[in-house]
């Protein structure tokens, strides 16, 4: 019953933006005065705003239904102890159901196989729903101001050029922007609500296409359409892996559902999560002889095939499933090696970058990795951890030299997503998702601030042309500072720490506990720690570069102004959340809500099943090193910020000189480690070569064979004609002429004289008689 109610509210929140999209796109196109009306914007804001209220209401209903058991858990003691006993949450969920799932409708049924659209609602779903709708509402409101220059019949696009050297003039497309944003919200919320992995894939692609539409919003710009294509195709490469994971899952498990569908306390449809059973050590249950992973029912009893054999899946295929799904996450969350699309995606309008390319869509990869966590085995987790580790370092180094304010934020996003992945990979499930939420707030805040700066500076994005904007746009500057402190993870007394402090701490602590358990993987702690310093450095560099110091471009500075309230109010709201959303840290409400339905095998240590395998630290192990890790991270961040202050906040050091000294490194970083060139040479060019070959092959081989066959037919028929006309006709003519000559010679005897004929007859008769009498005597 509660499940139905929750479904009802979340379905409204999910479908309203879709309705909004339809209304906005059609009314926008057909209304008499679409170029000057803000109706589309208010429609979009209304839809997503009501969606937020519905989500919040659903959260309330969910909490009341289980008497907020999740939050009470904290009051038993400090968080380390609560999860110490593994069975704790199981007993909780037995008393209070916290996860609800069921079918929305069926796509297709094939015998025993069923593909459906489901919903799966647990605390993670609800937190994500509320976060997405809240941030989206703020960004929609902000966009009303930011996109207001589209409210015209004659929009001049200074970044798009025509062949005669002029700028493109076009009608404004205000309504279209909000329509696409609404469509995106629909797709994103569908992704979160999805109750099976196939449905995730559906909305995965839909958010991808919305991202494509929004990146390419300025379709006139070649750079924008290039970036849009790149984003979509890079994502498709990840989705190729996703698809392989889906195929294996489908073949061996025969279902895509996450959770068990429970009707009247009976499991009617078993989900994936309960099919892979974990034994007392936290490892997956395996067949003792073959080593294959056993597929079990909800009580851990092995399921059997029709012929009575155990249902099982080879262990390596379980790894393939994990890696495949994770490949999708790599594409969507712009992880190494598919990270190159995200910086280019900054071609989209800034609210898009804030919503799609930092807070929600790109975080969907992390969300999925968290959602699908129960299916991941150690090898997959290690891959996730290293991918995250490489990504967070790589992106942070590039962010240090980027000069476009949005590019800095883009690389920072990639880097932070790397942190989240790392967190999930080192068994810090809650830490990774915790960072997802806090990052969503402070990164969307910073993007909106950068949008406010860009708007105030009349579409100037290059930081070398800014500087000294602090008192020109104070609200923007100080809210941005909140974001910068939050991402750096600064500590303040009285528990007023910035949200990033809590979440980054949690990740670093998990990593430290992980390397205690697996000393060989010490890089997984050192690199994030170092990068915490780099993060603080590039973030403060950006802030100092933009807001303090002397104005570097007087023209830009003179015309800069603070943005209107419609843009600053969202900044203030988001700043409050960016600062305080994680209040209380790991005994705070946000963290406890998030971890309310965490996979149960996280609680205790998992020791490696094989020699040289990976040990995974449980809650107690992580908690033990928490304070150490926090101290290290804070020291790193403070030193990074200090260096940034010295280099960019004061005039003590000549930055250009350093840049020249380190020219090689700087060039390498500024060229983004040459990934784009590498991929171009490795994949793009060969693909076009193969394509050209295929097209050539059709014409040069198949058609040539065909034409050859046709020509030989013609030759044959020519010979046929010759044969016909000389041999066959010759023969016929020969007979004809022979007959004729016989006739002609016989004509001699045809005299017409009767006596002669009578004589012939008589002679003939006599001759006949002679013959008869000689042959038949008697």
């Amino acid at each position: 019953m509660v499940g139905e109610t929750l479904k009802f509210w979340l379905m409204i929140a999910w479908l309203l933006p879709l309705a909004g999209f339809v209304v906005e796109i059609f009314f926008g196109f057909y209304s008499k005065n679409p170029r000057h009306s803000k109706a589309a914007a208010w429609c979009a804001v209304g839809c997503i705003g009501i969606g937020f209220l519905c989500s919040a209401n659903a959260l309330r209903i969910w909490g009341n239904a289980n008497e907020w058991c999740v939050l009470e858990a904290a009051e038993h003691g400090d968080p380390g102890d609560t999860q110490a006993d593994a069975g704790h949450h199981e007993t909780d969920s037995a008393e209070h159901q916290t996860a609800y799932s069921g079918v929305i409708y069926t796509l297709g049924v094939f015998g025993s196989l069923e593909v459906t659209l489901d919903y799966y609602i647990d605390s993670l779903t609800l937190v994500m729903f509320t976060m997405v709708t809240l941030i989206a509402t703020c960004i929609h409101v902000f966009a009303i101001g930011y996109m207001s220059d589209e409210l015209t019949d004659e929009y001049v696009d200074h970044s798009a050029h025509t062949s005669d050297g002029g700028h493109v003039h076009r009608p404004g497309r205000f309504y279209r922007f909000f329509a696409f944003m609404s469509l995106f919200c629909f797709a994103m919320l569908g992704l979160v609500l999805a109750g099976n992995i196939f449905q995730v894939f559906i909305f995965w692609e839909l958010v991808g296409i919305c991202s494509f539409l929004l990146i390419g919003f300025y379709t006139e710009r070649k750079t924008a359409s290039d970036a849009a294509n790149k984003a979509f195709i890079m994502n498709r490469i990840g989705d190729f892996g996703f698809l392989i994971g889906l195929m294996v899952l489908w073949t061996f498990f025969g279902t895509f559902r996450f959770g068990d569908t429970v009707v009247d306390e009976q499991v009617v449809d078993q989900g994936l999560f309960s099919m892979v059973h974990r034994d007392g050590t936290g490892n997956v249950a395996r067949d003792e002889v073959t080593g294959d992973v056993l597929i079990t029912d909800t009580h851990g009893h092995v399921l059997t095939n029709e012929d009575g054999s155990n249902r099982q899946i080879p262990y390596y295929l379980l790894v393939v499933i994990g890696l495949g799904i994770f490949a999708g996450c790599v594409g969507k969350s712009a992880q190494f090696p598919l990270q190159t699309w995200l910086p280019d995606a900054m071609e989209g309008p800034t609210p898009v970058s804030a919503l799609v390319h930092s807070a929600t869509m790109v975080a969907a990869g992390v969300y999925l990795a968290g959602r699908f966590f129960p299916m991941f085995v150690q090898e997959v987790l290690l891959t996730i951890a290293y991918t995250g580790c490489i990504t967070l370092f790589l992106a942070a180094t590039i962010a240090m030299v980027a000069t476009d304010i949005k590019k800095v934020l883009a690389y920072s996003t990639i880097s932070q997503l790397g942190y989240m992945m790392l967190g999930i990979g080192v068994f810090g499930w809650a830490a990774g998702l915790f960072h997802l939420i806090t990052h969503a707030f402070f990164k969307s805040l910073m993007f909106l601030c950068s949008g406010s700066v860009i708007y105030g500076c009349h579409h100037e994005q290059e930081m070398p042309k800014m500087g000294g904007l602090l008192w020109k746009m104070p609200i923007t500057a100080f809210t941005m500072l909140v974001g910068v402190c939050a991402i750096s993870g600064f500590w303040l007394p009285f528990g007023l720490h910035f949200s990033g402090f809590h979440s980054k701490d949690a990740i670093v602590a998990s990593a430290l506990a992980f390397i205690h358990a697996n000393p060989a993987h010490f890089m997984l702690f050192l690199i994030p720690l170092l990068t915490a310093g780099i993060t603080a450095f590039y973030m403060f560099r950006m802030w100092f570069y933009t807001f303090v110091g002397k104005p570097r471009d007087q023209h830009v500075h003179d015309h800069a102004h603070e943005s209107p309230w419609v843009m600053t109010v969202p900044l203030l709201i988001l700043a409050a959340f960016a600062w305080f959303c994680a209040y209380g840290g790991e005994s705070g409400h946000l963290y406890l809500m998030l971890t309310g339905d965490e996979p149960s095998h996280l609680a205790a240590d998992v020791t490696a099943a094989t020699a040289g395998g990976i040990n995974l630290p449980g809650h107690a192990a992580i908690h033990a090193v928490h304070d150490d890790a926090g101290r290290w991270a804070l020291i790193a961040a403070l030193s990074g910020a200090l260096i940034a202050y010295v280099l960019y906040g004061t005039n003590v050091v000549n930055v250009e000189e350093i840049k020249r000294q380190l020219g090689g490194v700087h060039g390498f970083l500024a060229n983004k480690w040459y990934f784009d060139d590498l991929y171009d040479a490795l994949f793009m060019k060969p693909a076009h070569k193969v394509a050209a070959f295929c097209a050539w092959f059709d014409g040069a081989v198949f058609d040539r064979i065909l034409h050859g066959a046709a020509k030989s037919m013609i030759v044959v028929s020519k010979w046929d004609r010759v044969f016909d006309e000389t041999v066959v006709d010759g023969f016929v003519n020969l007979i004809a002429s022979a007959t004729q000559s016989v006739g002609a010679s016989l004509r001699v005897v045809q005299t017409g004289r009767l006596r002669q004929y009578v004589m012939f007859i008589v002679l003939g008769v006599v001759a006949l008689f002679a013959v008869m009498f000689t042959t038949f005597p008697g």
Partner: protein
Amino acid sequence: MNPDVLLSAIIFLPALGALILAFLDSRAVAQIRAIALGFTVVTFVLTLLLWGQFKYDVPGMQMVVEKDWIGTWNVFYRLGVDGISLPLVILTSMVSMLAAVASWSINKQHKGYFILFLLLETGMLGVFLSLDFFLFFVFWEVMLLPMYFLIGVWGGPRREYAAIKFFLYTLVGGVLMLIAMLMFYFNSGATTDSFNLIELAKAASGTSETLTKTLSPNLQITAFVLLFIGFAIKLPAFPFHTWLPDAHVEAPTPISMILAGVLLKLGGYGIIRVAFPLCPYGAYYAAYALVAIGVFSIIYGAFAALAQTDFKRLVAYSSVSHMGYVLIGLGVWKIGEATGKTINPDMWLMGINGAMFQMIAHGVSSAGMFFMVGVIYDRVHHRDLNQFGGLMGRMPLYSGLAAGLFFAGLGLPGLCGFIGEIFVVLSAWNYSPTLAIVAASGVILTAGYILWAMQRVYMGSEYKGPHSEDITPINGRELTVAGVLLAFAIILGVFPGILFDMMQSSTSALVDSMQLGYEKAAATLNELQAMR
């Protein structure tokens, strides 16, 4: 309506229209158009009526009609419909109707055009509804001639070449089918049921009451190969596909719509209606080849599309690529050597359903894509991808609709192309992981060529080609065609159950009978071995 009459009415109504047009003054263009369109609309309504009378839970043929035709040869006039043919019949009448609307752009010899057009529709509907092999063959050939003239007379500059290429290719396929047909006829005793597709299928699975003899397993393989090549040419599958780009490029827009929307489906339909049930053992024997050809067609077609500079040729190659999924879905039939039973029959069932869905989906999306190419071609009279650009600003509504239809072709969830592709691919791992992975990689290439084409045509700062002044917004007639197709693409993409429910009983029955057919053939082979 009485089913006896209904099926025949659906087939011959367009032919009747053609007959009426023959008596009209050839200068009365408006009337000719109106009458032709009227007949296609009424035919469409009749097929909807057929849908209304269709019973979902009957696994076999419904509304069967059987009348004497050529008694001495045991040829009958047999019609019927099941869950496999019904969606295709509706698709045919719908695409024909929309193509008739699109035919307004035809600007010469209207009377002849519409007569041939309607005859073509009769031929297509006849193929989908006939249950007699001979009748099937007759309709198959009836389709050929109007198509030949429609391309050869109303086509582009190289129309004669394209028309003769199309004609010869299809004729070769027809001849192969004829040989196979005679094989079946004489090997089943040349009785009154020897052309009956349903009885022949039952004979193959050993459940026929009237036909006791049929092809031996080895002859089944021969017959299957003959039939398969015949149908693969139509599909078209690599390496029998080169007629398609030429035919499409030269054909006028509405004929391209029919060609891609319906004619290609005849290949898939032939495989699922004739080749599979009549030679189950042959089908099993060749299954790997089918899947491999399908996979290769997907990749090859996508690469070839990537290299095209002619917009229409690109869409034509995308058809080669998309129809590869049909072969995969049909072919993923895996039998355990030890048990002789299908491994995971539900997976194969899913593959067949996916393949059928893909045929319908491609019928909608490719017809739409060809129409969208036609719309811009009518204005600027060229199709060079490098000479477009900026149409999003010049023709916003057109570009929006085109984006929707191209996304449907790209296999975007929520649109029809996705369901068929994904269900086929999901069912493929069970058969062969390697082929499944290669097939799945098609998603990257498809995104590549479609997005790149869209970028060159619709995006960009300005239009770069000739006749810029002729670019006018899409008109109401064009909007109707594109809107209807896009609406279908969305409906099928969001509620694929509409089609799956229709097909379910028939495809399940097919899977079961194929299994029986394999068992029968395997038993025969064992006996032969024992005798030796």
